[in-house]
């Protein structure tokens, strides 16, 4: 099958084009590093199928970043049949820099001028024919976003792939053209492929080329001794870059004619927005406010706190239980529901009140054994329903975060936070994978490949799980919702928002700690192109949400339901395999396992201080290691038995995740302090097995055990401190003193006042 590679600058639209060609749902982010490895698909509209490879975005073919190495190695070693160089037509000069390097490789090349819709909209004119004549390679105008020009591009790429192409350089008229020619001839004599490309790279002093061709590098060295340049001296890399840009400006830039409407130096709409959104003082408060707004619309119960202000909420009672429950989805005692609350209530109504009720009634009508009814209602359906109820809320959160990401705002946040992060030992570049952790830790950890500094990468992979992922969101939603239900004056969305913020703060604190201890070093520079703001593509958003929904449903119908069945079984059978009724659950295998580990959790507030069902929290934390959604499904499965087994029933029999936590609060005596500590423990501890496996794969050999220890210690110590400080406020003073002592120690050590003497190894006595 013929192969085409898509190469171009970050944010030029490669992945958008890739999706349009292959029908893929590859995610299109708005910052560098979203594509961290090549992505492959098939285009089927030519006379033969063509494999399409989407390479990471690069500015040049110099090996300074992992993306550049991936792209360069692919083009040189895998030898695609044609390279399609996507060029952002609104940023011609900068994009053509890479084009001049690709031209030097002996590979068929086609230039795709993307974002032509934006060029036409701005009134500018681009003469593609003139550019094609100047470059000497086919040039096609396209708009990947609007699906225009794609077929013509592919047909021209297909035609180009049938004709071999020899590399050409724009440096023929430069002062180093002579040495490039000589080196090229020498390399050709040794039958080295792509001799022109390697010759130019040798002239630049490319470290990979210097190592691979030492003899030819001597030729360059000798030339350098005779060559003199008033501006660049012996820096041939800068000289080559300057020569390229001069050639681009003189020969290619004339193809773009700017509209006369534009004033010189006039600010674009993006620039005007950035004046506010990246303002030195307002940027962080604006970011926090936007995040809070997102969390309020997702987890809040009282839209814009209207009921808290005007007090108009009430529970509708028509006499028809189903109608009352349906109306309560949109309006109830808490006021008008937020979009997230509406979806949660609606899903809960469908899953539990309707489907759950019908299944329970159906099983009872068949006369099946009591244990079989419990297995189906609580074990099978209970586990699934408990998690699925939260899916819409999590999707709403993903939708808002995706809008922020696709609009270009999150790229600005990385830039803003760089100023703060730098003080704590990491660059703003590390923020990009961290914010991806709000969705899922797995792609976030993979994205750390874009961090060139090893120490920064290890630190970032360790703190990514502190950014509460979509799987942990139901834990926070359920527990915060329960606390809000049981305590007046508490707002669930504020609590959830505070916990999310706490996770971010913990990440910064631990980054600082690691920079002072095991990961000391310089902070790498952070340079990033800020893409223009634009409205997110509706189709892209919906595809992204659909992917997430499919993933959740698949996970709920596989690992979650299997875990729920196992949990139900272990909680309803004793060690001698005898079946236990709900009220005897405390004699079950699961209860024994939970009680065995209960003492460990005592300092965190969910251990021995709880009553007979306290082991449920321990078991939930353990099952959360398989998948974090299991925490809520565990509550759901076990609370059904607790509710049934307690004489006189309980206030809420756990009809949903929030109700399950309320029941646990009433039956175990766990305080809100213990619940918050439980939340914090699950937020900071070892992530799910999948995420842990990815971290292990991305961590250098031998370091993963330290990462595991890091997670366990951080979560245990932090949640213990949280429980102690909230339960006994005077302990705040002790914690503050301890933290101050640690900070003082690091400051004194950094100033050299405190030093550690290394034990000298004694040399063996000299033999006479």
């Amino acid at each position, binding site marked *: 099958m013929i192969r085409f590679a898509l190469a171009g600058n970050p944010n030029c639209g490669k992945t958008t084009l890739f999706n349009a060609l292959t029908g893929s749902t590859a995610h299109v982010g708005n910052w560098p590093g979203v594509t*961290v490895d090549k992505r492959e698909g098939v285009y089927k509209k030519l006379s033969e199928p063509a494999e399409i490879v989407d390479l990471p975005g690069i500015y040049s073919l110099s090996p300074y970043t992992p993306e550049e190495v*991936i792209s360069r190695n692919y083009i040189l070693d895998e030898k695609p049949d044609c390279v399609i160089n996507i060029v952002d037509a609104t940023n011609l000069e900068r994009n053509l820099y890479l084009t001049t390097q690709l031209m030097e490789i002996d590979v068929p090349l086609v230039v795709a001028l993307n974002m032509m819709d934006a060029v036409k909209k701005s009134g500018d004119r681009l003469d593609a024919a003139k550019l094609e004549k100047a470059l000497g390679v086919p040039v096609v105008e396209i708009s990947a976003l609007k699906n225009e020009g794609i077929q013509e591009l592919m047909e021209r790429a297909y035609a180009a792939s049938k004709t071999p192409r020899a590399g050409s350089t724009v440096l023929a008229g430069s002062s180093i053209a002579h040495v490039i020619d000589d080196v090229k001839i020498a390399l050709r004599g040794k039958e080295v492929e792509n001799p022109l490309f390697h010759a130019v790279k040798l002239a630049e002093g490319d470290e990979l080329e210097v190592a691979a061709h030492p003899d030819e590098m001597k030729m360059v060295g000798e030339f350098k001794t005779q060559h003199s340049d008033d501006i660049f001296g012996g820096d041939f890399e800068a000289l080559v870059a300057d020569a390229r840009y001069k050639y681009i400006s003189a020969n290619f830039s004339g193809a773009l004619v700017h509209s006369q409407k534009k004033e010189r130096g006039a600010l674009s709409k993006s620039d005007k927005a950035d004046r506010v959104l990246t303002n030195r003082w307002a940027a962080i408060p604006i970011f926090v406010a936007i995040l809070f707004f997102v969390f309020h619309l997702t987890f809040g119960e009282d839209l814009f706190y209207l009921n808290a202000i005007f007090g108009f909420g009430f529970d509708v009672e028509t006499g028809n239980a189903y109608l009352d429950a349906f109306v309560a989805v949109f309006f109830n005692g808490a006021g008008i529901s937020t979009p997230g609350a509406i979806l949660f209530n609606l899903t809960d109504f469908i899953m539990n009140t309707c489907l759950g009720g019908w299944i329970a009634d159906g099983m009872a009508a068949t006369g099946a054994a009591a244990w079989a009814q419990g297995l189906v209602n609580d074990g099978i359906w209970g586990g699934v329903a408990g998690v699925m109820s939260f899916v819409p809320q999590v999707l709403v959160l993903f939708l808002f975060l995706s809008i922020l990401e696709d609009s270009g705002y999150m790229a600005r946040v990385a830039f803003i936070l760089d100023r703060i992060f730098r003080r704590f030992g990491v660059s703003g570049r590390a923020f990009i994978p961290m914010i991806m952790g709000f969705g899922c830790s797995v792609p976030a950890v993979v994205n750390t490949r874009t961090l060139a500094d090893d120490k920064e990468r290890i630190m970032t992979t360790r703190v990514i799980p502190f950014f509460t992922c979509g799987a942990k969101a139901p834990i926070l939603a359920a527990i915060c919702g329960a606390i809000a239900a049981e305590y007046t004056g508490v707002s669930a969305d504020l609590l959830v928002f505070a916990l999310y913020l706490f996770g971010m703060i913990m990440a910064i604190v631990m980054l600082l700690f690691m920079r002072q201890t095991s990961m000391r070093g310089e902070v790498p520079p952070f340079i990033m192109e800020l893409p223009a703001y634009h409205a997110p593509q509706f189709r892209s958003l919906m595809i992204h949400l659909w992917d997430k929904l499919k993933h959740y449903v698949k996970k709920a119908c596989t690992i979650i*339901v299997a875990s729920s069945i196992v949990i139900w079984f272990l909680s309803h059978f004793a060690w001698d395999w005898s079946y236990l009724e709900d009220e005897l659950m405390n004699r079950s295998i699961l209860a024994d396992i939970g009680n065995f580990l209960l003492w460990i959790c005592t300092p965190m507030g969910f251990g021995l201080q709880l009553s007979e069902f306290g082991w449920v929290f321990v078991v939930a934390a353990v099952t959360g290691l398989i998948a974090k959604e299991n925490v809520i499904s565990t509550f759901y499965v076990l609370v059904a038995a607790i509710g049934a087994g307690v004489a006189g029933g309980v206030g809420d029999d756990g009809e949903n995740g929030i109700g399950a936590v309320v029941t646990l609060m009433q039956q175990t005596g766990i305080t809100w302090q213990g619940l918050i500590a439980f939340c914090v423990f699950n937020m900071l501890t070892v992530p799910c097995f999948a995420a842990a496996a990815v971290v292990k794969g991305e961590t250098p050999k031998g370091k993963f055990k330290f990462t595991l220890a890091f997670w366990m210690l951080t979560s245990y110590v932090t949640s213990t401190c949280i429980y102690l400080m909230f339960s006994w406020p005077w302990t705040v003073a002790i914690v503050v003193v301890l933290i101050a002592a640690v900070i003082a120690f690091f400051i004194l050590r950094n100033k050299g006042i405190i030093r550690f003497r290394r034990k000298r190894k004694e040399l063996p006595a000299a033999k006479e």
Partner: protein
Amino acid sequence: MEPLGIVFTVLAAVLAVGIVVGVIAYRIVQKKRGRGGCDCGCDCCSGGCHACRAARKGDDGR
């Protein structure tokens, strides 16, 4: 117990065992196919994720 009750009781047990065994078998098959760790549905599962395919040395120059 009524015959219908016995049938549904047995079905419930078979369903539960089937789900657990099926999920375990599915995970084993996925792992053998090199997609053993994740199924997170993220885009990296298209090939760029260590949890979803065996790590390939040299792809990223490391």
